[in-house]
């Protein structure tokens, strides 16, 4: 059977293997929302204006992110160099957006005395995390499928 395996079949198998891997690397539907809830929750806790509560929220955020990432890593079952130039750009853009929202919330809440700013910012952080997460998935998938050998 293997002797009838043509060059076209071989190239198709390579493409098929890479496409399967790209699909597997894409995060499941719960992944980005979970990270979004953690990030949003962390910022929304600022509404309480309680340092101890915020410190606990940071701890919960760190542990929660670790658990969610570990579960997904366990599901995927591969280790890969995640941050190339494109992924780094997406990541930096996400961090900048999230920082901007947090700073704006601090300014509105503490300087302008606008209550509820942290709650709205938390919702924004959730949406930013989910949107950038899906963008990262798309970039990673394109990278795997475009690999040339």
């Amino acid at each position: 059977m293997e002797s009838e395996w043509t060059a076209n079949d071989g190239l198709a198998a390579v493409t098929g293997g890479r496409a399967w891997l790209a699909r597997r690397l894409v995060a499941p539907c719960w992944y980005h929302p979970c990270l979004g809830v953690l990030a949003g929750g962390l910022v929304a806790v600022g509404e309480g204006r309680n340092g101890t509560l915020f410190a606990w929220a940071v701890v919960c955020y760190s542990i929660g992110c670790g658990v969610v990432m570990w579960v997904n890593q366990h599901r995927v079952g591969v280790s890969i160099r995640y941050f190339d130039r494109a992924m780094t750009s997406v990541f930096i853009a996400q961090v900048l957006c999230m920082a901007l929202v947090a700073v704006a919330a601090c300014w509105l809440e503490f300087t302008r005395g606008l209550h509820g700013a942290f709650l709205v910012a938390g919702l924004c952080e959730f949406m930013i995390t989910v949107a950038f997460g899906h963008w990262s998935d798309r970039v990673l998938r394109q990278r795997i499928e475009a690999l040339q050998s």
Partner: protein
Amino acid sequence: MIVARFDEVVHAPNRLKICAILSAVDTADFATVRDGLAVSDSVLSKHVALLQASGYVAVEKRFGGARRRTSLSLTSAGRRAFDEHVAALREITEGDARARK
């Protein structure tokens, strides 16, 4: 520069798929590669053993939690053999396409 070189060890369907998956990652779990090929553990073991004997695949066994996990990776020789084999396949298909014109 990649030189086109047909490799009988790599060319078998399942072994080519194994190399295609491993070439895109640093390491992959045995179970992940098995899922990708949709074969049984024993079939994958047989192919991995052959690739390992040829120096193309490195196998690492470690204990993670209650179960032992086996991870696979392409060696530099394996990566080169795979790249050269795919280049050879491309040459063949491009040659066929030119011959048909």
